[in-house]
């Protein structure tokens, strides 16, 4: 026993056992229902896009880690989550080079130029999608993407149809159909029920902060209700907004990304509500059919400004003799 080498480190000597790998693994698990549904519905091309997006994102991470001489951390699987989310937001027919370009922008411009893990001010996936949306909008047009497919439901992207044809088109989309994924859209963004189940799983496991999700959904419902009540002929009802496009994916998976969202309670509520509010403003007043991406990027931007609203630390501002 005399010369046994002991491990010396600092307190505390216990750990809850949580890790970044656990966090990202749970994100992937939570994304599985919606992703699987997309594969069943859109077939092999969807599987191809999802796997290409995930693997290319991980590859970009390895390349960047080598170039920037950082520790290779793909085992944490953060880039896998970025890539999978990217794949779930694009149509199944997206060409391979667009997918790879998109994940390049997401991982390199969205994450690595800001210093890698924990440094990104925006959700990396959204940076990738936003750049594609500006550069090659045709590849993100869900109506043209699925022309060769035969569906037994209205094969129109709900939000684009609403923008171009007005509220008359709403009768072709029932809330049930939107929830069960009977709509065209991104591979993993159509199956509302699956996204909700995955999102609630993540909240219960403590990997996403419920305040953001609840405030985000409240922001959508309240703002959309106000518009709808004032002009029922011009604007869509709140549930249509909630279940169409990227809204649910945004609420449960995109707005809650750790590094780009607040951690204190009041800022989380403000952040989430503003996100939902902005989505409806873009959809009802702006020119884009789906405002989810831009509005989440916008609230990512105000995150550092509002996250300074925090409770007083122990002993601060207390006057006593």
């Amino acid at each position: 026993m005399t010369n046994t080498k002991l491990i010396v480190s600092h307190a505390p000597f216990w750990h809850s056992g949580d890790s970044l790998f656990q966090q990202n693994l749970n994100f992937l698990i939570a994304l599985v229902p919606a992703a699987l549904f997309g594969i069943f519905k859109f077939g092999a091309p969807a599987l191809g896009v999802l796997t290409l997006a995930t693997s290319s994102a991980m590859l970009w991470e390895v390349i960047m880690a080598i170039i920037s001489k950082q520790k290779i951390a793909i085992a944490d699987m953060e880039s896998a989550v970025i890539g999978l989310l990217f794949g779930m937001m694009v149509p199944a027919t997206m060409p391979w080079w667009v997918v790879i370009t998109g994940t390049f922008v997401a991982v390199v411009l969205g994450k690595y130029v800001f210093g890698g893990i924990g440094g990104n001010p925006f959700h990396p996936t959204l940076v990738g999608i936003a750049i594609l949306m500006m550069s090659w909008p045709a590849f993100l047009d869900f109506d043209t993407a699925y022309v060769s497919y035969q569906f037994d439901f209205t094969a129109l992207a709900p939000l684009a149809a609403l923008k171009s044809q007005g509220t008359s088109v709403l009768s072709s989309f029932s809330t049930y159909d939107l929830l069960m994924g009977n709509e065209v859209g991104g591979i993993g963004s159509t199956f509302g029920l699956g996204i909700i189940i995955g999102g609630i799983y993540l909240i219960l496991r403590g990997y996403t902060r419920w305040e953001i999700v609840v405030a985000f959904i409240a922001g959508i419902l309240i703002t959309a209700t106000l518009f709808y009540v004032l002009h029922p002929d011009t604007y869509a009802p709140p549930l249509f907004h909630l279940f169409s496009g990227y809204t649910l994916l945004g609420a449960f998976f995109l707005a809650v990304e750790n590094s780009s969202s607040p951690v204190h309670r009041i800022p989380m509520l403000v952040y989430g509500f503003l996100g939902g509010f902005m989505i409806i403003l873009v959809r009802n007043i702006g020119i884009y059919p789906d405002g989810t991406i831009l509005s989440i990027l916008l609230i990512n931007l105000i995150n550092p400004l509002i996250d300074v609203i925090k409770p007083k630390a122990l002993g601060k501002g207390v006057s006593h003799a």
Partner: protein
Amino acid sequence: MIKRSFFALSKPRLTYDLLDTSLQSAEPLAVPGSLTLLLPEKIDSAKKALIGPGDAVKKGQKLKLYDDSTPYVLSPVAGTIKGFDSYSDDFGNKATYIMIKPNPSAKGDEQWAQTNLEQTLEFAVGHLGQIPGALPFSTLANPDYDIRTIVVTGADTDLLCDTCQFVCSAYADQMAAGARILKAMIRADRICITVPENLSVQVDLDGFNILRTSDTYPSNLPAMVMKDHLGKVLSPGTIPENEGVCFIRPEALVSLARIYETGHPVFDKVITLIDKGGKRYRVKATIGTPISKILSCFNVQINERDRVIIGGPMRGLATYTVHHPVVPDMDTIMVQDRDVIAELSDSACVNCGECIRICPANVPVNLLVRYLEANLYEEAADRFDLESCIECGLCSYVCRARIPLYQYIRLGKHELLTLRENA
């Protein structure tokens, strides 16, 4: 080790252990063949030392390194000084190990028989500074503080530990006697004792103000007791002593009572050993006994790359050698198997917010750590509440990126003090 629960919607809750009633008494450990005393002063080769190798020491003899030094230790045995070694703690503060070989046939106690045992603070500062339980007499005698309230930590401050609860229940009478002596000595207004609210063991605590503390960590830590029970919230950068409150161990009172009862110094310290399986052993060891002796007494095997922790799992200190001696303020020794040691990482903060949710002092740890990593200590204190931290370690416990947050904070406070001293 308590792990994260599967459903983690609310923040994790760590609870203190109650007194292990299966251990009725502490097993006395014989004085080993070699003792090591820890003297909190570094060896200065430029000065002429008062003691040297080969010198004979008597039991109870006061050992100082130099003429002008204040720190001292009392030799627990009669014997010979074998040698010196230097020791440095985790912040690099230097101290000295004094190795003593006991001589059972030598006559002891002369030193103390001649001393007139006075019940005054001056005498206590000069002679009782190293009694088991480490009563902080130098703090009590410090003219900068006006100590009016003594809080006895009857409820252990760290998880798993139950030494203080054991001392309270097993030596209640002596503790009360010690409290009377201390109260007379320092003219304190009141003596409080913290007791776990769920403790089923009946203890007679006449003369104490009883503060019943919750079983949720960190409610037994001094800053939390001050806030919850004494109505005094510590301002950032202050310690309880600034508010006239001093926290002491129950064992310090027991030792005090025994010294004045018998007229002889006491050197046996109650220690709880927690083995890898969580089983507890209670032992009474002489101050200076190497930890390895306690481990071998109970056949606790230490393998390569295990961890030996002095103190509890949240705030303890990992020792690098099993030869480290029993010191007056050591309550618990915990052995951790290499397989359960959690890995730390140098990953950046990912802003998951777990630390924010659990911090009992509302410190914005996620932002604070970025400043501490960049060595911006003054900014960390001014803008991100570095000094409000009560050092409970919960942020590191929950950290998803496994950043050693607690150590960053401790280091930050240490560096801040150094900066201010040099300013």
